């Protein structure tokens, strides 16, 4: 039950007869009148328990986009229900308005549309719907909360997809260049075709030419071999969801940047014909995408990433080689999306790196904080100088860890949150061009 402002006004109105009649008993009489009216109003109000709810809502939405959530309410009761209804979305679901006026005659159905603009990745829920049904006098209302669960999965935004066209273009250049110019490591035999003017004469396959004769004219036609970059390589992306990934850089958690760069790399690698697998891991596997190809790959990647939040645990690096082995036993490009900050924190990573680099090509990608570089240059007063010194020390630490990783045979890719995804894509293209996949 709930009362309205009209109820309060009605009680307050009692002051008029009280003063005019100047009898204390009027107070009691007025209060009895108010209680009678309120009870009558409550009895006449339609019951919210008689409403039936159905949700219509898309299963997923990309972060930053808006989506309409529809709530279908049918009145199975015997009276009109009029009042307000609240669809209880989580605050981060970004519901534009959670309260809506409602008036449903008995036996009819109405739709309420809530526009959602979620501002956090993950599973966003609405637990229940609360209805406040006022009586005809609008004095008091019956109120009930009904469990109507609904959820929408908010996917990572993949803002770095704007870099995809330029990287794909470079991949194609690589393709063309290899077919004409380069043979050797990193390329593989593609097909035989007829010689056209401009082809490299060194790529003429004389045996194939000898075997092949034009049946109509009998004139010999030259056959050349074509080459293309190697395909069907394996790319294994391991995203660290441990405690260091919860730290924010430019108001974005490290893990979100890792997801962005993983998505860009996956999109690029799948176009290049490689197979991409993803594992999100801290002390247990938080998400795994394996064996997905084509358009299905990106969809299942974002779907897996969406609900993952960093755990306040230390990353268990010792299990990573086994994890990679469980994904593929071939040579693969292993991308470790983590952070290289301090020698102490990177000990685990450095310990297992030799095992990985013995079998695979390893890229360690890490987000760097642009504010650290800025801090080294600001030296206005005492505090800032000490801050600059601490920043230099942090840069030095990072440099030492990176050097150690390089020494162990890994490739280090660092960048600010905005720069890391394209930098990782570039590193992939460079490795592909060099035939190190």
């Amino acid at each position, binding site marked *: 039950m*709930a*009362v309205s402002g009209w*109820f*309060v006004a009605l*009680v*307050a109105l009692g*002051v008029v007869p*009280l003063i005019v009649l*100047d*009898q*204390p008993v*009027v*107070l009691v009489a007025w209060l009895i009148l108010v209680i009678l009216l309120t009870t009558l109003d409550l009895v006449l109000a339609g019951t919210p328990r008689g409403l039936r709810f*159905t*949700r*219509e*809502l*898309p*299963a997923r939405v990309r972060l930053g986009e808006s989506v309409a959530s529809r709530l279908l309410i049918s009145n199975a009761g015997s009276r009109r229900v009029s009042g*307000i209804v*609240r669809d*209880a979305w*989580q605050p981060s679901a970004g519901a534009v308005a959670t*309260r809506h006026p409602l008036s449903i005659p008995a036996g009819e159905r109405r739709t309420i549309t809530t526009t959602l603009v979620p501002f956090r990745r993950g599973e966003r829920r609405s*637990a229940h*719907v609360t209805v*406040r049904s006022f009586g005809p006098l609008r004095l008091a209302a019956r*109120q*009930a*909360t*009904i*469990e*109507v669960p609904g959820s929408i999965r908010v996917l990572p935004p993949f803002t770095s997809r704007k870099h995809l066209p330029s990287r794909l273009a470079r991949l194609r250049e690589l393709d063309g260049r290899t077919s004409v110019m380069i043979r050797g490591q990193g390329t593989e035999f593609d097909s035989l075709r007829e010689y056209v003017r401009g082809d490299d004469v060194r790529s003429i396959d004389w045996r194939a030419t000898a075997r092949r004769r034009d049946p109509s004219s009998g004139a010999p036609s030259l056959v050349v071999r074509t080459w293309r970059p190697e395909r069907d390589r394996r790319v294994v992306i391991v995203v660290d969801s441990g405690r260091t990934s*919860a*730290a*924010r*850089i430019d108001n974005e*958690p490290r893990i979100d940047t890792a997801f962005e760069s993983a998505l860009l790399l996956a999109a690029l690698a799948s176009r290049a014909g490689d197979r991409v697998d993803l594992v999100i891991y801290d002390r247990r596997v938080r998400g795994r995408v394996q064996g997905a190809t084509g358009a299905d790959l990106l969809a299942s990647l974002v779907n897996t990433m969406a609900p993952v*939040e*960093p755990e306040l645990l230390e990353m268990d690096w010792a299990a990573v080689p086994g994890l990679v082995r469980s994904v593929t036993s071939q040579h693969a490009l292993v991308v470790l999306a983590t952070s290289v*900050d301090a020698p102490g924190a990177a000990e685990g990573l450095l310990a297992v790196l030799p095992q990985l680099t013995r079998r695979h090509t390893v890229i360690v990608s890490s*987000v760097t*904080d642009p504010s*650290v570089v800025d*801090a080294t*240059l600001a*030296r206005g*007063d*005492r*505090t800032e*100088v*000490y*801050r*600059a*010194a*601490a*920043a*230099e020390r*942090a840069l030095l630490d990072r*440099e030492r860890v990176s050097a150690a990783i390089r020494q162990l045979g890994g490739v280090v890719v660092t960048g600010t949150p905005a720069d890391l995804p394209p930098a990782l894509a570039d590193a992939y293209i460079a490795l592909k061009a060099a035939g190190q996949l």
Partner: protein
Amino acid sequence: MTETLAPEQTVLTPTLRKRARGLVFWAVIALFALAIALITIGLTGTSQDAVRLSPDSPAPAGARGVVQVLRSQGVTVAVTSSLAETRTAAAISGPESTTILVRDTESLLDGAQLRSLGGLSSNVILLEPGFRQLNTLAPGVAQAGSLDSDVVLSADCALPVVQRAGTVSGGGHGYRLVPASADTGSETPTSITTACLSSGDGSDGGTDTGSDSGSESGGATAGTGDVYSLVRVVTGESAVTVLGASDALTNETIVTRGNAALALGVLGERASLIWYVPSLADVAAVSPPTLAELSPDWVVPTALLVFIVAIAAAFWRGRRFGPLVIENLPVVVRASETMEGRARLYQRSSARSRALDALRVGAIGRLATACGLPRTASVEEIVQAVASISGRPLDQVRTLLLDARPTSDRELIRLSDALLELETAVAAQR
């Protein structure tokens, strides 16, 4: 689009019946607690009258014992709480056979009322009297402070009741004899004052005892001090007894020493005793009209209505529109947190050389890159290259990059600025 259909819905708000069932549980518990409280009170008995020296109180400080013993000895004891009641009780027994005991610790009676009390009986006992009562009924006696409960007094006057008691507990109040002023002395020429139960702590000096008591002492005032716990003033036919040794009457100590003999002797001299404890009924109430009498009738109900409106408004605004929705908030840790922490540590411990070393290592690395030297180049090589490129003396560059030790924060800032400036200079040269 997915469609979630809920054929049978769960309503989270409890129905009225369910809520009432929940309330029944608490109501039963409340009733149970109430019953236990009532039983406990019934068993332990209500010590409703824990007032000191109350004639109805069985508590240690009460005086029910002495009243009951007096009754069993054939003395009619009446307990009154107003002057009118006292008057009625005194009229029944007659002034000659009545003793009135007054215990007015709050000084509720005024002078006229006290004087009329003297008219009701010829034997008035003032138990622990205050200034006004002494001034009206026993002008030759004054208060002399209180006595500890462990004081023991012995009979030291010719009064038979005191002689019979022997020794008495002295706790209560002490009194002192003062010379009556000239006018009162002329009015009551023939008052005989007998002072007994001297406690001998003449804290005021107590130089001389007998001559101090202006009016004629009754011979037997052989005390060593001038503070007494029992003073009897006899004026003509009527006697006023000032009794300060109140501990002697309490239930706790009535049985020790000669307390009982004293109590029975003093209170049971006559056939009936009126134990009068003045109450608020004795205070004449005449005051100006109150605000409520002056204001119109509707003011109080209106104020009540305003209060009710406020409560209704609280319910209107305070009713929650369904339960809150839980949101797991993300951890917000800035990655630069460790750097800031280290900077504060440096600053707090004034680690100047350490801070400067960090700055130098960074600067040397960048200078080496700017000079086109490999990573493996030694510091000495870098210093030479920087000196030649920037055109500065070798010593100066070496001091800046290697040797200088900052002794104060000012120097640290100067060196850090110089490093930055050197970097810019080298970068500009390339």
